[in-house]
């Protein structure tokens, strides 16, 4: 079976500075894969490389066996990969409803249509309502996204990410800045909404990582030093030395 995401010997340099060096990562279909690593290890850069936000200097990225490195973000998104952002990245002046609906439009085949009334597309309406219900924001549907609370914006961020029905979902620190109760709620939400999908998640909260992930990769200085099940990672001496040593005992 081809992997959902296959990263092979990817390198990213900004000028002379190598941020990512010889990055290899394989995520199987249906797997929940967490990427952990200290600050500045290149976790977000890895996300940006896979999702097409930036192009790798060398190496290749494959999505379900197709080469996607060098494609632009919307082309990659149309092939079924969707990502969220570490810093909330929504459409601030539009309502919650419209935020989610915009993310539904391409996947339902309406593209750049200027001859259809957006309010009278039943499948768009139903899917948007379903997503809003899933992320528990139905009661806030007419509120501009910019006026939501932080936790609500994070939930909306997840809603926009999954709205297209992508089979590969990448979440960049979805619980960053949340309280314990909010984190618990968000994890339950992520677990439910990514059922049957491939999930790649960057996360700092180790309880979230070890509770959610099937496999974990540890990124240090732009290089993956270990990849395995949570149990293997917990035992790995290199990981202990480089990362877990000071944070989890």
């Amino acid at each position, binding site marked *: 079976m081809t992997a959902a995401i296959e990263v092979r010997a990817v390198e990213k340099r900004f000028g002379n500075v190598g941020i990512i060096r010889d990055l290899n990562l394989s995520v199987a279909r249906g797997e929940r894969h967490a990427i952990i690593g200290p600050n500045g290890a290149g976790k977000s850069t890895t996300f940006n490389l896979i*999702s097409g936000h930036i192009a790798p200097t060398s190496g290749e990225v494959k999505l379900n066996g197709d080469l996607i490195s060098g494609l*632009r*973000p*919307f082309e990659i*998104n*149309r092939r079924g990969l*969707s*990502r969220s*952002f570490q810093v909330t*990245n*929504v*459409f*601030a*002046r*539009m309502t919650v409803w*419209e935020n989610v*609906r*915009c*993310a539904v*439009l*391409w*996947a339902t085949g*309406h*593209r*750049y*249509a*200027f*001859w*259809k*009334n*957006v*309010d009278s*597309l039943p499948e768009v*309406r*139903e899917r948007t*309502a*379903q997503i*809003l*219900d899933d992320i528990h924001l*139905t009661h806030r*549907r007419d*509120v501009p996204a910019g*006026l939501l609370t932080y936790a609500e914006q994070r939930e909306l961020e997840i809603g*926009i*990410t999954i*709205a*297209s029905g992508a089979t590969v979902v990448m979440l960049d620190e979805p619980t960053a800045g949340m309280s314990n109760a909010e984190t618990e709620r968000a994890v339950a939400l992520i677990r439910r909404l990514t059922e049957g999908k491939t999930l790649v998640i960057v996360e700092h909260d180790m309880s979230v990582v070890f509770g959610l992930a099937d496999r974990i990769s540890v990124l240090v200085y732009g290089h993956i030093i270990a990849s395995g099940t949570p149990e293997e990672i917990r035992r790995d001496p290199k990981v202990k030395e480089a990362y877990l040593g000071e944070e989890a005992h």
Partner: protein
Amino acid sequence: MSTAMTSTSKVPAEAAGGSLRFYGVWLIGIIVLIVLPMIFSSGGLLTSFSLIGIAIVFALSYNILLGQTGLLSFGHAVHYGLGGFAACHMMNAVVSHGWPIPLPFIPLFGGIGGLVFAMIIGWVMTKRAGTVFAMISLGIGELVASSSLILRSVFGGESGITTDRTALPKLLGWSFGPQLQVYYLIAFWLVLSAIAMYALTRTPLGRISNAVRDNPERVQFIGYDPHVVRYIAYCFAGFFAGVAGGLTAINFEIANSALLGAIQSGLVLFSTFIGGTAFFFGPILGAILVTYLQLGLTNLTTAWQLYFGIIFIGIVMYAPGGIAGLLMMHRPLIRAGTLWTVIPSYFVAIVPTIALACGVILAIETVARFSGGDAINLFGIAFNPTSPVTWIAAAVLVVGGAFVARLTWRRIAEAWDRAATVARDRGYLA
């Protein structure tokens, strides 16, 4: 699942409830356009209404860029002017070839003129938004405006291209000689264009344009190429600007380089912004006000552009939502029933604010007319611009008015805060 079902079924119900009021507003607008010349039938007013109608189409087309897609163009008049030239050439061609195309179809060719040029230059222009787009639009504007003087066979040089609208085939016996018939032609195209542009905001493209305005980066991660979205929006804006240009060509029976210059581009930006870009009807209000002021002020004072500048700066600084934004601010207060607590503070503020405005007007006119020596006539009182009495009056009004007005404005702000807090507590978003 049950909540999903109820929320799904609630959506069409709400849409149906709002639609009655929605169609009512459009119907009233159309009736007003039909009845207007029956009430105000003087030639001068008919001309003004015609110009306002054209300005509304133009401003609405500009708001497809600024308000809907977040593109600040300094060269939108290029499409307006080229639409005007296209319409003039088409009218002359219809007459010389004897084609059976009556005048009411001509604005369509103006639109096509604006559209074709938008399709050609738009792809490069819309590659980037923001400052890059603004700079390129300025450059293209200047380029086309100066080309219009050089390429004489197409643009007719300084004198422009003239035409005769009455020489076209008649439609239902209308020759379109009288201004009244031209007014109705403009009103017809105004309604058609406004409905089309409103409908555009309600399409998938329209909503994605809003998303591109808010966050072009994120749009790429929901499957859309922001460049394509901006390009299509730009083409629509170019088309409707061309329609407005075509209407101008019909109205004046001439197209010249002034139509596509920086002044026109500035005026449409001005109208749209003053009216308010966040609401569809904002540019309509702005176009009415700016055209009305433009026509009225030029007769009253040579310094009319100065007043425009002051109004513009005032709106940008204190009411960035424009007139529409100011009006719509009151909606939650009306719904919550707390508007009455704010109204008295408005009345208190009126007197010192008018005094301040009079002082500013007196000061400007004193400077403008100092060497000419014409008297300044303000509310029936004649002021001599060379007399120290006038200077003192201006100074007292400006300083005193500003001092008292600031106090009253502060009271408005306090009253507003209280009313808005109550409205929020009652569940109406402010």
